[in-house]
């Protein structure tokens, strides 16, 4: 842009004194640095406008400029320190005002801390907590496990998932959150566990449930069968004449309780017939007592 004061004020060479003043006022109001506290170009623009007006606003200087006796920068003023240079530089000045945000400080911790800092107290703020979700296997939740997790920002977390945690439970890892400010404590990492379902086991509180298929022979005659539990296989006795739906308890084979001890495991028996067994068909065909047995007698009486 030209330094020519006529161009700066955007007026014609033959503008009247009034037009010059009007042009100056219009531009000065727009570009005054104190009315544009955050605009770095405002000071430069205002200086050019003021410089131009210094020449053109004074009939004598204007005549000298028109005659070419002084140039556009011929009348530079000493550097003007604007109010914004002081008001924006520090908070400790007497005109500082919090009226523009005071109402937000009650609800916003960060702003409250900043305000406290501005009034002289040193600024310390505990780091923010990190919130994480961690999927773990059913058996990891029941038996406990060590976990190594690398966060997106590269932070590595090593921690123990204690035995007996449940789905949705939150593990607090002290000091593993965001770093604190001003030497304050870091926040915590809060890890919410998502326990994936198991193919066989179901969890009810501290107890574990399992559906166990047994053979017709085992159901009728009883016997000892192997049962999977979260801690390995155990042998269980099936009493004679065990029906589908019968529930057997394995004491202490459930989940570790927070207060100590273990829950129980409940095994629901399911009698499974052999497929396509002609011998069984022959036997049942001639089994008079079986033909007479009506397990729905109660249902029929009710209905």
């Amino acid at each position, binding site marked *: 842009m030209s330094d020519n004061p006529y161009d700066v004020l955007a007026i014609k060479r033959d503008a009247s004194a009034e037009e010059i003043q009007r042009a100056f006022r219009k531009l000065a109001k727009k570009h005054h640095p104190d009315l544009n506290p955050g605009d770095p170009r405002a000071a430069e623009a205002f200086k050019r406008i003021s410089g131009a007006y210094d020449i053109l606003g004074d009939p004598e200087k204007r005549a000298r400029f028109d005659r070419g006796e002084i140039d556009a920068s011929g009348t530079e003023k000493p550097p003007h320190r604007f109010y914004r240079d002081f*008001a924006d530089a520090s908070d400790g000045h007497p005109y500082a005002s919090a009226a523009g945000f005071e109402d937000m400080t009650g609800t916003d911790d960060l702003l409250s801390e900043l305000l406290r800092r501005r009034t002289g107290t040193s600024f310390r703020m505990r780091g923010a907590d990190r919130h994480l979700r961690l999927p773990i296997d059913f058996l990891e939740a029941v038996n406990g496990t060590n976990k190594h997790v690398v966060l997106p920002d590269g932070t590595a977390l090593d921690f123990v998932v204690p035995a007996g945690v449940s789905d949705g439970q939150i593990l607090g890892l002290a000091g593993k959150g965001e770093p604190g400010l001003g030497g304050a404590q870091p926040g915590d990492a809060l890890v919410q566990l998502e326990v994936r379902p198991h193919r066989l086991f179901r969890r009810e509180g501290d107890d574990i449930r399992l559906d166990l298929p047994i053979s017709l022979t085992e159901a009728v005659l009883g016997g000892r069968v192997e049962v999977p539990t979260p801690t390995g296989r155990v042998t269980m006795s099936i009493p004679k004449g065990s029906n589908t739906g019968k529930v057997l308890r394995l004491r202490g084979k459930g989940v570790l309780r927070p207060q100590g001890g273990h829950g129980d495991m409940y095994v629901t028996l399911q009698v499974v017939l052999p497929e396509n067994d002609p011998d069984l068909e022959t036997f049942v065909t001639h089994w008079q007592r079986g033909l007479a047995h009506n397990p729905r007698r109660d249902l029929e009486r009710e209905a």
Partner: protein
Amino acid sequence: MTREEFCSRLGIGSATLQLWTSEGWLLLDDTGSSSASLSEIDLARGQLIRHLGDEFGVNADGIGIILDLLDQVHGLRSVLREVLQSSAARAER
């Protein structure tokens, strides 16, 4: 600086300074002693008051409103700056 020095550097009379302080635009101690010290920020604020009143034609009520809003803008800017600095400091760690 003294009140006299302040007035002469701004090119105003002592009555004008009196008016500005009674309007609350400038904060001075009220003892009225001529040795009361004014600082550079008062001078710059005075310069702004002169620009608003003499050059922009803002009336007294308007000047008060503008000064008040400007001080709020500076307060907001300073808080905003600190918020940005704290979040930058957090991002670095």
